[in-house]
């Protein structure tokens, strides 16, 4: 990839994120101009800006952090499984995380603080299931997806069953079950961002390893890579990122699929540029989905995950049809 194209992609995407941010901050009953927003935040107190700061900002930042985490999780899973169709939502990692997070919230509300940890364990369990069940003389890309769809269906079903069977009385779990980003506070964001930053830094650190996994396993081994160990470390980081975002905003399908795919077209397949760029683009896409969901049927809301499914489904089919060529082989 040409350096110029990479730099340009980064700049334009960052610009898009900024514009989107302003739009998202202005979506709702209160309106402020960019100038008013800036002065309200940094210069003098402004009542409207303060309200937006308390109510809309956490949601915007959570959407961005969750989007970045989910997209990078997708990149890492694709590297580990050598499969451009791997996505934490599609293969059940997110729903495994949702289920354990919901169970914890329902049965031990006092342990609310450990929701991320519970989600992480659930995500790991789902990932392990998919990996083991689809292993048969190596990992066939299509088998991973098929097994993943089944695992995903099972966990989603268990979660719905639990939710219906208890009369949906656990409101704390509702936002995870329905995957919406409403009613979020700065406290939520502060918890989320800590994990996300750790996960993203870890992802950047292993990005060199991701590149090497793109070679045949034998070849990677011949240049001294401990393939199994690399895979395990990268998988754990991927699951952490997906689980953590699931614990706060619910399972978002297709985001981890669409973003890395577009990112590869723009900045190439070297993970040192792909990982940070996917984080940026993931933030843009999820914030866009959330803001569009807030806008098109206002005052009602469509959750970001629904928007992602509607847009992502056709995209996935398109990728599936094209995957015979190139990278997927």
């Amino acid at each position: 990839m040409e350096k110029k194209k990479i730099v340009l992609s980064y700049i334009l995407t960052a610009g898009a994120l900024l514009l989107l941010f302003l739009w998202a901050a202005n979506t709702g009953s209160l309106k402020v101009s960019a100038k008013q927003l800036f002065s309200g935040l940094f210069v003098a107190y402004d009542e409207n800006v303060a309200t937006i700061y308390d109510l809309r900002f956490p949601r915007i930042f959570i959407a961005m952090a969750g989007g970045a985490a989910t997209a990078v999780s997708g990149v890492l899973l694709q590297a580990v499984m050598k499969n451009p169709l791997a996505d934490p939502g599609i293969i059940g990692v997110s729903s495994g995380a949702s289920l354990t997070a919901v169970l914890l919230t329902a049965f031990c509300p006092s342990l609310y603080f450990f929701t991320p940890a519970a989600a992480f364990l659930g995500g790991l369990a789902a990932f392990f299931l998919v990996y083991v069940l689809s292993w048969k003389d190596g990992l066939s890309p299509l088998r991973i997806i098929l097994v993943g769809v089944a695992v995903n269906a099972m966990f989603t079903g268990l979660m719905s069953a639990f939710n219906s069977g208890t009369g949906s009385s656990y409101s704390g779990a509702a936002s995870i079950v329905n995957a919406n980003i409403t009613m979020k506070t700065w406290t939520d964001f502060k918890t989320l961002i800590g994990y996300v930053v750790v996960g993203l830094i870890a992802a950047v650190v292993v990005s060199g390893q991701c590149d090497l996994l793109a070679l045949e396993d034998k070849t990677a081994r011949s240049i001294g890579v401990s393939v199994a160990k690399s895979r395990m470390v990268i998988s754990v980081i991927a699951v952490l990122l997906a689980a953590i975002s699931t614990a706060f905003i619910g399972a978002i399908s297709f985001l981890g699929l669409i973003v890395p795919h577009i990112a590869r077209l723009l900045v190439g397949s070297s993970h040192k540029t792909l990982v940070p760029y996917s984080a940026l683009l993931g933030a843009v896409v999820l914030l866009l989905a959330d803001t569009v969901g807030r806008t098109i049927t206002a005052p009602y809301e469509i959750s970001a995950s629904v928007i992602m499914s509607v847009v992502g489904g056709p995209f996935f089919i398109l990728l599936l049809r094209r995957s015979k060529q190139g990278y997927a082989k």
Partner: protein
Amino acid sequence: MQNNKEKKNVFEIENLSFAYDKHEVLNNLNLSFHEGIVTTMIGPNGCGKSTLLQLMTKNLKPAGGKILLQGEDIAQIRQKQFAQSVAVVHQYNTAPPDLTVEKLVSYGRIPYHKMGVPFDKAKDMERIEWALEITNTTKHKDKTVSQLSGGQKQRVWIAMALAQDAKVLLLDEPTTYLDIRYQLQILRLIRRLNEEYGFTIIMVLHDVNQSLYYSDEIVALKAGKCIAQGSPQQILTGELIQKVYDVTLKVSDIDGKRFILPV
């Protein structure tokens, strides 16, 4: 060619056994590979030669017995350290479509990096340049691997292995899929690496004439057993061909060189 009678062993295979599920491929194999020469393994499909190569490169784990590299059990050698002593060119390779040749060859330096960080950049550069040059791929270094022809690709994979600075080079059917011109290019390169740069070469070949011409020593395998080992002129006879491949071929000596007519 070396006439050294006191050959040192680079690899020693001791009572090696291996099976894929219930299908036994190697059973109690004992074999030595000698240092400083070109050794070629021949044998029919499924005789275990590729499996043996995979075992010797730590890609498979033996079910029984062990493999020694210069006296040390390879199971005890860490992957990274092993990669500094032994480089491998596999039969089938893939790379991301936008990976450049130079970047790929630079992967050969990974065994010398610590926590993914280059340790001696000048040395890395020097070895990469040398590897590109000797494989005649310097002019392609900015192209992507996917833009290259089959023969060029194979030379690039060899270049990556050479950048590893390992004195032992293993190649699994390096000429398969290539036309005759590229086959000869690769084989001459391998010969040169041995004669001029002192590499110990162990490879698997299918073409008996090429193994005859380009090797110092032949190891003939059949059904997981070594049935002959020695200099090609001595052991590659019609009788051995009959024994290994179950076919009768005409073997003739023309101008002091032996040829096998594979038709």
